[in-house]
């Protein structure tokens, strides 16, 4: 067998767990998911696919791996779901391990392929169904499962303790006051207009982003709050590990926290999958057709602030920038134009990418792929050569990534392919270039 970046990966989350499976258990779980948990979509999609291969060109993994058929979207479905259906779930542990590798690490459920399939088959949904089966079998990459466990135990993604959360906010409030003395991070302010929610890596490792937001809200004159209880984290890796029960629990708490604080909307930080979990997958699993309270993604919020003049730009950012369109907010919310408006409003020198907007390539980190951890990093890098080529072609120095997964994923790609670029969130540029009114300077 040819050696590939993934052929020697050791991941106890799928190696050891898959070895312990019995054929009976596998078949029981497969049948349960295929007969009880799925219905029309799965069946119609399986019957409609004409094996035309037109989805292949959509996939960054396929393109980056010299069009290896194993990595085309339909190729991944063939190696997983088609076989499960054909063999009526009678597969062995080794099969399940491969299935987990494909579904968790070689597909970022970015849904670009749905735009290339003439029938609009939701191939990402099919791969998520595979992940669901893996999750119920306990065969999930170790780091991803650990993240899901964190959600289950702490209701946040990174085992952040309740005191750490509040303490971090109080610390960042003080930090932000060095920039704008009147800055606050109002906690537990019932009846505020906005609840701001973030993903756990912000308090854990990127706390300055919270301080940045405090400055932006201060300048915008926003009436906002953050909870001092669990429910502040809007991220959701359980959605991607296939543990939909935990996904629902996390999302319910997030929405009920907003309802408890009587806010009129949630504004969320620059994260894509969190938007997806909070607005689509979470509410649907719980029974809400649409989110119970409006949720505004940072891109849209910044757009509102800049287009309404609530935030003015003192002097545009000078560096040569380009952008990454996060799947879950551009393909998943149509925010591509607003993103470009924001970037043009803040930056002097912007070069767009090709392909762009809904057609932009995934960062290959989203969909839980980067959360599969270090063992899979090389595979992930090899799977996104096209992203490196695309970014290099812009000649930009800075890649603006309004999504945490994109941010980390692109940072890795820049390092791996030695692109000599840097990544930034919009908020980092915004606090640099926005005009702070005199009365706030204190």
């Amino acid at each position, binding site marked *: 067998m040819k050696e590939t970046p993934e052929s020697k990966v050791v991941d106890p989350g799928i190696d050891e767990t898959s070895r312990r499976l019995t054929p009976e258990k596998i078949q029981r779980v497969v049948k349960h998911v295929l007969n009880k948990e799925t219905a029309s979509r799965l069946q*119609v999609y399986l019957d409609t696919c004409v094996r035309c291969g037109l989805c292949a060109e959509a996939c960054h993994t396929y393109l980056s791996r010299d069009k290896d058929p194993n990595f085309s979207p339909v190729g991944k479905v063939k190696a997983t779901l088609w076989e499960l259906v054909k063999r009526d779930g009678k597969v062995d542990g080794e099969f399940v391990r491969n299935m987990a590798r494909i579904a968790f690490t070689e597909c970022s459920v970015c849904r670009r392929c749905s735009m290339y399939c*003439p029938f609009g088959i939701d191939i990402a949904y099919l791969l998520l169904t595979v992940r669901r089966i893996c999750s119920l079998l306990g065969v999930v990459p170790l780091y991803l499962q650990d993240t899901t466990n964190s959600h289950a135990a702490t209701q946040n993604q990174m085992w952040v303790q309740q005191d750490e959360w509040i303490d971090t906010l109080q610390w960042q409030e003080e930090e932000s006051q060095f920039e704008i003395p009147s800055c606050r991070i109002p906690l537990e302010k019932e009846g505020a207009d906005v609840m701001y929610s973030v993903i756990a890596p912000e308090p854990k490792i990127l706390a300055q982003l919270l301080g940045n937001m405090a400055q932006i809200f201060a300048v915008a004159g926003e009436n906002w709050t953050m909870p001092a209880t669990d429910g502040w984290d809007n991220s959701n890796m359980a959605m991607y590990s296939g543990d939909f029960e935990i996904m629902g629990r996390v999302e319910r708490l997030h929405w009920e926290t907003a309802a408890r604080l009587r806010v009129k909307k949630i504004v969320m930080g620059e994260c894509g999958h969190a938007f997806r979990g909070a607005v689509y997958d979470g509410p649907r699993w719980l029974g809400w057709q649409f989110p119970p309270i409006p949720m505004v993604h940072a891109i849209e919020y910044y757009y509102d602030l800049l287009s309404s003049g609530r935030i003015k730009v003192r002097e545009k950012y000078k560096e040569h920038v380009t952008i990454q369109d996060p799947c879950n907010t551009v393909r998943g919310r149509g925010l591509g134009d607003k993103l470009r408006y924001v970037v043009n409003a803040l930056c002097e020198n912007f070069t767009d990418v090709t392909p762009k907007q809904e057609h932009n390539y995934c960062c290959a980190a989203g969909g839980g792929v980067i959360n599969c951890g270090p063992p899979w990093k090389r595979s992930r890098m090899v799977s996104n050569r096209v992203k490196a080529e695309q970014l290099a072609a812009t000649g930009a120095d800075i890649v603006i990534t309004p999504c945490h997964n994109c941010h980390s994923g692109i940072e890795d790609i820049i390092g791996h392919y030695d692109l000599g670029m840097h990544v930034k969130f919009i908020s980092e540029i915004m606090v640099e270039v926005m005009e702070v009114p005199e009365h706030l300077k204190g």
Partner: protein
Amino acid sequence: MYEFSRGPLVWIAFAILFVGSVYRIVSAIVLARKDKVVLPYMKWKFSLRSLFHWSLPFGSHNMRIRPAFTVLSFLFHGCLLLTPLLTLGHVALVRESWGISWWSLPDGLSTMMTILVIIVGVFFVLRRIADPTVRFVTSYLDFVLVILVLAPFVTGLMAYYQVGNYETVMIVHMWAGAIWLAMIPFTRIAHMLFFPLTRAYMGCEFGHVRSARDW
């Protein structure tokens, strides 16, 4: 045999096609209710918007990046659907039986369209073999399907040019056509039935729910 083939057989084939298609579509919709999250999101506007873009040649990005394939595919599907409906011989048969008729294609054109279907069909077969990505997901069934689809056209052409024993060829042609019709709901040719459904659903998920384009 000839009489049976041009009479009851056609009836049976159409009955199977009709009943089978209704069954497949209805059961898909019934199952969609069990899926819960499908029907509540469906909106005509976005369903039709998506269907429009994907029924129009070069209406989607993917069609534009592979122009040759797009042209061949539209020609194939167009000719495949129109030729049997508008071939003079078929229209004449209907007129003889029920006294109704419609415009028919000039012989030359329908012959050309038939040949086109066969050529593109063969191209599809060759593509399945030559393109590793497609070959990877191809099984013998995919070839059987192409044969199933092409058989009526090949035999129709043979009948037109009187190749072989005319009556035998005609019987084979009618059987081939009947089998093809009857098989539509029960093979992957059902993509023809499901295309509007899957397309509409995705159009709504992208357009109505996510304010994004899906083409």
